[in-house]
């Protein structure tokens, strides 16, 4: 639900009154996503089977497909960074989908959640680059021609700083927009108006999670491959 529309009553508001913690709603919905994922993880770990069925099959399809995609794009080194990428994708996906449940809000509809994730992506790919190349990582920032290096250093700095910002704003704008549209359509035509939008938004939310994942992958690829 979108904030600003005269305090919509979501589950987190009720929970917050009960607990008296005074935390913003997106924190509760992030915890909910974490609980869902941890539960899935523990259930699956307990009964892994050689012939997967049900939940294990679903997770194997998604994770296996993503791993192939990453290895295809980055190369064998991609397997090292894949856990981070996949965790990002599934976490964002679950948080996005929670927004579709009536009375719930997507945690990614708040700019703080996205900023936190985008900054961890920024720190992580730079850490990977420095770990692999050492001091030579600076060559990634200098461009191919040596006498243009000072200019390229500034340009690359701007470009790299723009990455977390664009990650944050893209995810925030899309998910928040979808939440607002859902609320507005619910006001206009309850239930009947929102139902068709659900199909569109399931698509939209999956694509947004995938874009975040794919951009993280491209940045990691940039810091792992040799400077041109």
């Amino acid at each position, binding site marked *: 639900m979108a904030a600003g529309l005269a305090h919509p009553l979501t589950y987190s508001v009720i929970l917050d009154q009960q607990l008296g913690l005074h935390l913003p709603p997106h924190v509760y919905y992030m915890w909910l996503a974490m609980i869902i994922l941890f539960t899935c993880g523990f259930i699956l770990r307990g009964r892994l089977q050689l012939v997967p069925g049900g939940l294990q099959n679903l997770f194997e399809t*998604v994770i296996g497909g993503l791993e*192939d995609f990453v290895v295809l794009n980055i190369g064998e080194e991609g397997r090292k960074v894949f856990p981070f990428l996949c965790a990002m994708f599934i976490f964002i996906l679950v948080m996005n989908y929670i927004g579709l449940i009536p009375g719930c809000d997507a945690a990614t509809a708040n700019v703080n959640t996205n900023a936190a994730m985008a900054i961890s992506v920024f720190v992580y790919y730079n850490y990977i680059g420095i770990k692999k190349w050492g001091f030579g990582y600076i060559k990634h920032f200098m461009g191919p021609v040596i006498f243009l290096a000072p200019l390229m250093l*500034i*340009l690359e700095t*701007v470009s790299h700083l*723009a990455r977390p910002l*664009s990650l944050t704003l893209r995810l925030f704008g899309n998910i928040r927009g979808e939440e607002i549209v859902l609320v507005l359509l619910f006001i206009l035509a309850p239930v009947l108006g929102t139902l068709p939008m659900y199909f569109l938004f399931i698509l939209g939310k999956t694509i947004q999670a995938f*874009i975040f994942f794919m951009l993280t992958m491209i940045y990691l690829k940039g810091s792992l491959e040799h400077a041109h």
Partner: protein
Amino acid sequence: MFFFKRDKPSEAMVLFGNVATIGMQLVVATFIGLAMGYYLDEWLGTKPWMLIIFLLLGIITGFRDVYREAMRLQRGADEQSAGPSGPGSDGAKGGPGRQGK
């Protein structure tokens, strides 16, 4: 399913992802340049100059990023259209790989 075809993220989703990133880069790089110039001005006390210089650098960066992204997409499309029809026959019938779009 739409999202995963034969255990892989579907082509439509990858294409959608690539296209959706381009516009944002242009805007955000400009704003980062603007912000860097503004705070450098406050720090160094050179009122309008750093702002102007870094705004220009930001705009240049934005366009360069978009250009690089477009080149990357082009390369991907080339590989894709060369892939299924084989390396030898890309001259005569390079089209089939991209027909679906």
